């Protein structure tokens, strides 16, 4: 089975966000909505440890949710008091985000194309990178996200934790530790570890990096 083209991939996600429920549209299609809710909350708890347990309304942390989908993580992180920018390529997902509100800002952008006048304390990308099917675009995306992390800031990228790449169906390519760690190091980030989701056999987790230079 061949992979979707960039246009087909974009159309697929736009349609999926319009068709599916709040969580399932960006979640695991093999789970129903309540199970996806558990999955989302579990990932949020991992992010809470990565972002830290401190916040301040006057001098907030600045976070980038890269590939925010319908904005669930953006809204929850904004509720913790952080200033959140959510970016996604899907117009239908962003329309939903803006309608729901919740304190985050939303912009239409690819992961490789986003720029900001300020660097972020934490850049996170939750279960998005393995849906970027073109390898060059994936690398551009990782490099751009890494470059948006300020000194001593964190980068959290979700993918599977083994070495090597693997293709699932026609819209998912997981890339391994042997790809992420050297690339991030080249971008000035130290590898702090991989935090598995450990949720009902899901093989994915967060690669966590800190910018040291």
């Amino acid at each position, binding site marked *: 089975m061949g992979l979707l083209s960039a246009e087909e991939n974009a159309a697929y996600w736009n349609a999926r966000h319009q068709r599916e429920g709040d969580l399932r549209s960006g979640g695991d299609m093999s789970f129903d909505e309540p199970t996806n809710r558990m999955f989302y909350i579990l990932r949020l708890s991992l992010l809470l440890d990565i972002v*830290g347990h401190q916040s301040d309304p006057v*001098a907030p942390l600045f976070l980038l949710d890269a590939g925010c989908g319908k904005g669930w993580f953006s809204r929850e992180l904004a509720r913790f008091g952080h200033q959140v920018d959510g970016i996604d390529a899907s117009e239908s997902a962003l329309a939903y985000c803006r309608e729901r509100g919740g304190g985050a800002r939303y912009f239409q952008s690819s992961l490789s194309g986003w720029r900001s006048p300020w660097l972020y304390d934490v850049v996170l990308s939750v279960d998005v990178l393995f849906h970027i099917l073109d390898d060059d675009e994936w690398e551009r995306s990782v490099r751009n996200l890494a470059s948006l992390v300020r*000194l001593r800031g964190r980068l959290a990228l979700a993918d599977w934790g083994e070495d090597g790449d693997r293709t699932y169906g026609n819209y998912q390519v997981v890339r391994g530790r042997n790809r992420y760690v050297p690339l991030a190091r080249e971008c000035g980030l130290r590898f702090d570890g991989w935090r598995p989701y450990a949720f009902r056999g899901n093989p994915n987790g967060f690669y966590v990096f800190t*910018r040291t230079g």
Partner: protein
Amino acid sequence: MRISELLPRYLDGVREVVDVSHPDVTLERHLRLPAEVGYRRVALEQAAGAGFGPETMLFCLLGAASPAHVDPDALTPVLRRFSPGTRAALLIGWSVEELPYHRLVGPLVAGRCQIREVTPLDRAAIRGVSGALVVERVTRLAPLRGYLIDARTPVEPAGPGPAEPDGGNDGDSGDGGELATVLRVVNEYQLADLVSRPVRRRLAELTERVESQQRLLAERDELLRDARRRLAEVESSAGYQLGSAVARGARVPARALAGVPRELARVWRGRRSARRPGPGSDAG
């Protein structure tokens, strides 16, 4: 964050906290120092003549409200007498938005002190204090912390430089890592400074526009109140009520025969009914 959460990360090797705050400022109970760390109060003038080493942490409240607050310039002679490794925890008495950081940078540089961490403090914790700095007298760049996100994790040294392959030579990695960090700081600072300028300008323009709109709205509200008041006066006047009766009579002449004289009589009888708001009495 609370000051009691911040300090423990910097108490390694410290045997005593020396508080040079004004005598009327009592902050000891907020520190929650461990039993093995002593606490002592010393006048700032006395501290300026003493020397401090890494076993002592200086503590004080900076701000603009003299004498309760210590002026940043008054800290310079104290910081100059720090030996390398000595730290100070400085509470910030200004609001974060109004922090005159330009007045802090000079004394810190003069004292060869690096800011190890700067963080806002929870409002409810110490009244009038918005944040805290921990500074350290250094001879080389000390490891940096991320803003707020490193609150729970110990800070590791800069480690091997990011460009070094696995198993690379760690012998000179410290210097390479330090240079990379300094370059990152300088380069981020330079570029962020440039990019922030149009953002700051836009903020100033938008602030002015909002203030202008608020003034305009206030003027319009005043005009509206004035117009409503005048309208009420007109509608309650005898002339308006009589004229309304005549106008209604012109539309329905049969009704005017009774309505106009009735209205006239009402006006003659007294002002009270003529001053009721709303349209004049029904001509019937």
